[in-house]
């Protein structure tokens, strides 16, 4: 090994430590007592080890953590299922059906993508309120059910599938929906997985939308709940172990998804740029 490569590895390892260390500290500190978290913030070995933070989150009557988790799960699953279906349906139409007005639809979607999300905070509230779905699951889920970026991912993928596959189905007399549903969709697995990951991650981590369309504590999702925890809603003192434990727990589902589909995530992002 030359000095150059040795230096390169040393650099890589030290940067990696910087990137990983915060998470290790987070996990370790969530098992510490309040006093120890303040005294030894750097130590990775809690002494004594205590599960008090987790016990509080799951069992204390003061804790809304189970409610937040349930809301997050319900909303995320609904959004993910809806997005995968509606985006792929629209993506298929844009990729394969030569219909009048397709150009307009396409242009509209591009325009929609250019609007920065922050501009939509107030507007979303206005419409959700007008429709009478403020403070409801409908208001939380419906606005997230389709996204232009997802439609484009599906469209690009469908365009890469050879047309001859569908011709056979058409000759056999299959309708357009049937061709889409039972021929093309099963072939789009890689794109569908990408969409599932993006939708899950996006809606699980979403905060601003839920702040704006709900105020009812019973409808709080994890991001909103943990945010209120961070600003000290139920805390006396700092209670860092409690906050860190909650933040750690909410990271687990996206982390699992990430590690299971890691290869897919890395290659999708790479593929997206090659276009």
């Amino acid at each position, binding site marked *: 090994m030359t000095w150059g490569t040795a230096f390169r590895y040393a650099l890589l390892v030290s940067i990696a430590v910087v990137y990983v260390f915060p998470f290790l500290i987070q996990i370790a500190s969530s098992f510490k007592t309040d006093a120890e978290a303040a005294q030894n913030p*750097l130590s990775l070995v809690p002494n004594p080890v205590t599960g008090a933070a987790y016990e509080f989150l799951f069992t204390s009557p003061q804790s809304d953590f189970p409610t937040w988790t349930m809301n997050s799960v319900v909303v995320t699953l609904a959004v993910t299922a809806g997005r995968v279906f509606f985006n792929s349906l629209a993506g298929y139409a844009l990729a394969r059906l*030569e219909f009048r*007005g397709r150009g307009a639809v396409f242009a509209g979607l591009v325009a929609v993508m250019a609007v920065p999300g*922050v501009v939509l905070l*107030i*507007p979303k509230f*206005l419409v959700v309120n007008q429709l009478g779905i403020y403070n409801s699951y409908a208001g939380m889920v419906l606005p997230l059910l389709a996204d232009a970026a997802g439609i484009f991912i599906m469209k690009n993928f469908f365009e890469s599938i050879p047309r001859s596959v569908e011709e056979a189905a058409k000759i056999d007399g299959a309708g357009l929906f049937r061709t889409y549903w039972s021929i093309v969709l099963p072939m789009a697995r890689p794109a569908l997985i990408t969409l599932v990951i993006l939708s899950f991650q996006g809606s699980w981590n979403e*905060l601003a939308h839920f702040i704006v369309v709900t105020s009812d504590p019973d409808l709080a999702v994890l991001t909103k709940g943990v*945010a209120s925890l961070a600003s000290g809603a139920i805390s006396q003192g700092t209670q860092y172990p409690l906050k860190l434990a909650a933040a750690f727990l909410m990271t687990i589902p996206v982390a699992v998804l990430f590690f299971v589909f890691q290869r897919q995530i890395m290659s999708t*992002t790479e593929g997206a740029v090659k276009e």
Partner: protein
Amino acid sequence: MPVASQRSRGSSMRSRETAAGWLFTAPALIILGLFLVIPVLMALWVSVSDWDGRGSPLAGDVSFVGADNYEALLTGGGLTTRDFGTSLRNNLWYVVLVVPLQTVVSLTLAMLVGRRAIRGRGLFRTAFYFPSVTSSVAITVVFLFLFSSTGAVNKLLSFLSIEGPNWFNDPRGVLHIALAGMGVDSAPAALTTGGLLGVTWWEWLAGPSVAMVTLITMAIFTTSGTFMLLFIAALQNIPAELEEAAMVDGATSRQRFFRVTLPQLRPTLFTVITLGLIGTWQVFDQIYVGTDGGPAKTTVTPAYLSYTASFGSQRWGEGAAIAFILFAIIVTFTILQRVVLRERTTVPRRKRFLQPVDERRPS
């Protein structure tokens, strides 16, 4: 689109496809129209109205006030203007520091792990990318702990006998601190009398507050992984012969980077900077979770101000106006960046005949 296939099909097929096309796209279009297009139009109306949050903004008792809301923000001179000016100042420092730094960091990471020769590069990539996957709320909670007065960062600093600041509660601007370190702790009169949007030049030049520095650090930590992936992909698309040719010509690694690699990366660089600008001008979550705009309003951003003005103080017109001004800022910055990067491309092109022929291939 293939003309031949159109011709071969009958016109009944064509109209059937039109019906199906609209049917297939309808759910997505309705959702996007209902929750994206109509809302923007409604908010545009609110930004020029005196709606106070009660009833419908389209009701009869809500009236048109013209540019009043915009005027209050931009030229009013009162607290509204000062708060808006402060939020722009804060966010400008955030953008100016985060965008270049995250671009350099992500490119560096990509250069380090992009090569096939690196062992365990998958592991390194995972480590660098993981922060991008986790929610901004969770990361903010972790950073609140790391940068607390008794937190890990100050503990590390104490090993170097440095007494760390109370990061999230320190409103002092870092440039002011640096100037004070050099003995300059009051402003020349010219800087305190003049100003823009109710904020004196001296305050515009304060630099990001210590609290904002933690948010800047956090932004680089969480976004560099995503951008690293974009750069890795672009690096893999550069033909190996290019670099080999440069090596044969005796170019140093420094020359190879600046004259061969970097020009090839221009499209990706462009994407990363554009996404960076759009993202950094909209910073919201971290402020909402971490600082509430404090200390001393030094972490208030336009996005956060738009939210608090509307949902907090019920000044909906103002909040909507801030959102649209922010929109205009983002568009302006994106166009500006496009112009600047385009101008730069003419410089290397003139130099090009000095370089290997291969490189003249348009990227």
